[in-house]
């Protein structure tokens, strides 16, 4: 049997393969830091949303958006970019932006669940 690690199909495996170019240790390090750091950013994003601070939400979206490519969820990066841009250009009111941001938070939480499994699988593979 071929001993090759394949990224989960739930995440975009082609993006992951292309980004890490086969360096699984590098991928594991990035997954682990993502799992540690992103939940606190989500917490801050939620707090900004509750305080109806659109600029605060925009700042967090800007900060975290590129990281989703590194865990195989490029559409989430695009979604964050769209909302960030809309807020920056004054096209989105809090009323319109809030459900979009809520949906981003849900997507992030889904990604974290998938990534946790992916990280465990990767660890097991690398420890073989």
């Amino acid at each position, binding site marked *: 049997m071929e001993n090759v690690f394949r990224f989960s199909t739930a995440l975009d495996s082609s993006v992951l393969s292309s980004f890490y*170019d086969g*360096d699984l240790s*590098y991928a594991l390090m*990035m997954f682990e830091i*993502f799992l540690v*750091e992103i939940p606190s950013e989500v917490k801050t994003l939620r707090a900004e949303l509750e305080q109806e601070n659109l600029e605060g939400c925009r700042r967090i979206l800007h*900060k975290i958006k*590129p*990281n989703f490519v*590194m865990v195989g969820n490029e559409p989430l990066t695009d979604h964050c970019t769209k909302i960030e841009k809309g807020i920056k250009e004054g096209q989105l009111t809090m009323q319109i932006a809030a459900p979009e941001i809520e949906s981003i938070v849900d997507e992030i939480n889904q990604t974290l669940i998938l990534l946790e499994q992916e990280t465990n699988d990767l660890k097991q593979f690398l420890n073989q």
Partner: protein
Amino acid sequence: MNSLRSIIIEDDLVALKNLEILCGKDPRVNLIGSFGNSEDAVDFMTSNDVDLIFLDVELPGESGLDFLENSPALPQVIFATANKEYAFDAFQFEATDFLKKPISVGKFEASVTKAMKNANETRTFREKPNYIFVKSDGRLVKIMISDILFIENVGDYVKVVANTGNFVTYNTMRAVDEKLSQYDFYKVHRSFIVNLSKVVDIEDNSLIINDKVIPISRSNRQGLMDRLNLL
């Protein structure tokens, strides 16, 4: 193989980790510091030589663009940001390159190749720079070594007296002495380090630079004599 002494200014810990890993993979990059804001980086650069900065734009406090605006003479800068709209700013500030996050190995290596090429062409390596940076009034000021007349201790600060002006900076004489000892400087007194090439006259216990009489301590006099180009 020569390497570029590099720092990262990035507030996102995931992006920072990625850059740190990429720097670690590339032998041409010697990562000597990572900072979450530009103010800490400025402090670091007052006492460390840096060849290359990986700079995020949206930062807490002073933005990356303000940092560039306030520090007119900096080493090479590679923008590392999530928004491609900053590419124009990178061009305006004559940045070495613009990297859009997330940064992959290939894009990183290509940027470092550009920085290495520039470093080779402009000799911005660590051989022995002919300038120092001094943090004065919240700005990094570039002073040519050849313009410095002497350095005077003023309490918790040191005053760099140069042909181009006087610059007061928070530092110790010891640190300045260490930094300038590789050049033609000598500590003649606990409160004075002088540029030997600027000395115009020496008496028993003093010397003159630009009409300023500077004391020579008894314990440093012989050392000074040894450093002078005596006939």
